């Protein structure tokens, strides 16, 4: 395919990959992470001097801010992890016991599919995949018949990282709880863009990442663990407490945290959460929904394009996927970047089962994920670029 490179403005670099990691971050996020590294020495929880205490206070405030965001009464039930993948591993490997049966949706990311796959291949657990519709909605009737006496956990991807469909969390949690089954929610795509009331929804375990819609740095994330659920720690080690015994503490949050925390990252994450609180989750959601609606409508005007996922933007979060007839999505992504300075993601997005459900396996899709800092004009530039590419595909 030939494109006219003279028409390209390489300086623009429009960013449509916020589902991978959000960019840019609020200015305060960069500043806080740098300040933490420059001024706050000392290992949180260890040394006892005043600078260490400052680091501890910052980590405590970040935990409190997350607890407030998710409507959790007790901040000690939020533990820090490297990212959502890490948190999901802590949850799955800490919760599941030999002989357990797990139900997961077809929309799950490899961060769920791979730990479960390993445990299944090792003969530790059995699993059932909950199919979903072409629009990405889990089959609730199938769910009702999927429970077994050994079923201990239902894993739900709150929003598909491929097509953005938001799962009917309340209905699914109520269904699981009626059967005495706990629920693990993967909120990688939704924390910071959709209001999640953990207490009201009665969520048992919720994994989140800091570097997507929470607008923090990479290397931050965490897991909410409901009171009464005791996870076997995945890691043990230094916590700064009870150093005289070779037994990891039982008290949360340290029970599930070992080693030095990412205090610079968490300082940035706190500012990301502060930005969300000051801006208002509703306003963020409204802006992103409007962008998605406009993007989808204009993509749908091109007959060569197939857009996946629900028509109604308000039922989605984050990602929007499309394909152009008879083209390789990888090549389209390459042209978008090299000829138009537009950054997006193409392929399977670490969610192979979702693509099988949508009929886009193994070729994948072109995924566009605007964020809060995306402007309406950016969408227009993107659409014009896609129109140009589609016109070129017609010429062959």
């Amino acid at each position, binding site marked *: 395919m030939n494109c006219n490179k003279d028409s390209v403005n390489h300086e623009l670099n429009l960013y449509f990959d916020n589902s991978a990691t959000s960019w840019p971050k609020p200015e305060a996020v960069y500043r806080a992470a740098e300040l933490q590294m420059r001024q706050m020495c000392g290992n949180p929880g260890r040394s*006892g001097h005043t600078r260490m205490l400052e680091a501890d206070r910052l980590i*405590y405030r970040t935990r409190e801010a997350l607890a407030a965001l998710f409507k959790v009464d007790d901040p*000690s039930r939020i533990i820090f992890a490297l990212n959502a993948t890490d948190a999901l591993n802590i949850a799955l490997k800490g919760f599941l016991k030999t002989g357990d049966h797990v139900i997961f949706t077809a929309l799950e990311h490899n961060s769920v599919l791979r730990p479960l796959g390993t445990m299944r291949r090792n003969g530790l657990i059995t699993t059932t995949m909950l199919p979903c519709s072409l629009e990405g909605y889990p089959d609730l009737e199938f769910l009702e018949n999927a429970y077994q006496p050994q079923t201990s956990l239902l894993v739900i991807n709150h929003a598909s990282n491929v097509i953005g469909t938001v799962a009917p969390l309340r209905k699914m949690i109520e269904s699981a709880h009626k059967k005495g089954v706990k629920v693990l929610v993967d909120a990688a795509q939704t924390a910071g863009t959709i209001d999640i009331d953990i207490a009201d929804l009665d969520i048992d375990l919720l994994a989140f990442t800091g570097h997507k819609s929470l607008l923090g740095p990479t290397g931050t994330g965490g897991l909410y663990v409901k009171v009464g659920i005791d996870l076997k720690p995945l890691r043990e080690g230094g916590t700064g407490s009870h150093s005289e015994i070779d037994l990891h503490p039982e*008290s*949360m*949050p*340290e029970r599930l945290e070992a080693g030095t925390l990412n205090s610079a990252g968490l300082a940035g994450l706190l500012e990301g959460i502060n930005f969300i609180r000051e801006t208002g989750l509703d306003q963020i959601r409204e802006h992103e929904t409007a962008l998605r609606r406009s993007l989808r409508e204009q993509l749908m005007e091109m007959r060569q394009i197939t857009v996946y996922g629900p028509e109604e933007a308000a039922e989605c979060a984050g990602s929007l996927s499309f394909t152009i007839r008879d083209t390789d999505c990888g090549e389209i992504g390459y042209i978008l970047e090299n000829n138009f300075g537009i950054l997006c993601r193409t392929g399977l997005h670490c969610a192979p089962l979702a693509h099988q459900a949508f009929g886009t396996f193994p070729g994948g899709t072109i995924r566009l994920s605007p964020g809060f800092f995306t402007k309406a004009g950016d969408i227009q530039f993107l659409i014009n670029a896609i129109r140009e590419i589609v016109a070129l595909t017609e010429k062959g």
Partner: protein
Amino acid sequence: MATNCYVTFPTIFYAIRAESLLKQKDFTFKMVPVPRSISSSCGTALRCACPDLSKIRQYLADHQTEMEGLYQLEEDGFKMPIVKELQSDELQ
């Protein structure tokens, strides 16, 4: 010679939680490194005047803050202090 009282915590989370809660009220206290003579638990302890200990302990207990131990120390410069562990029911 000075008499001070100390509260120790199972983890740093509860030490900082205690500080955060008490700062919002009119309590007089200081966060200090745990005196090695009393505990090797979390590295930060709360030091207060002994007559205030009962109210501080009660306030923290009422606000979901786990504590590990309560101590009274007779401190004399750099000499090893005389330590007395206190039970919550013996506080006034």
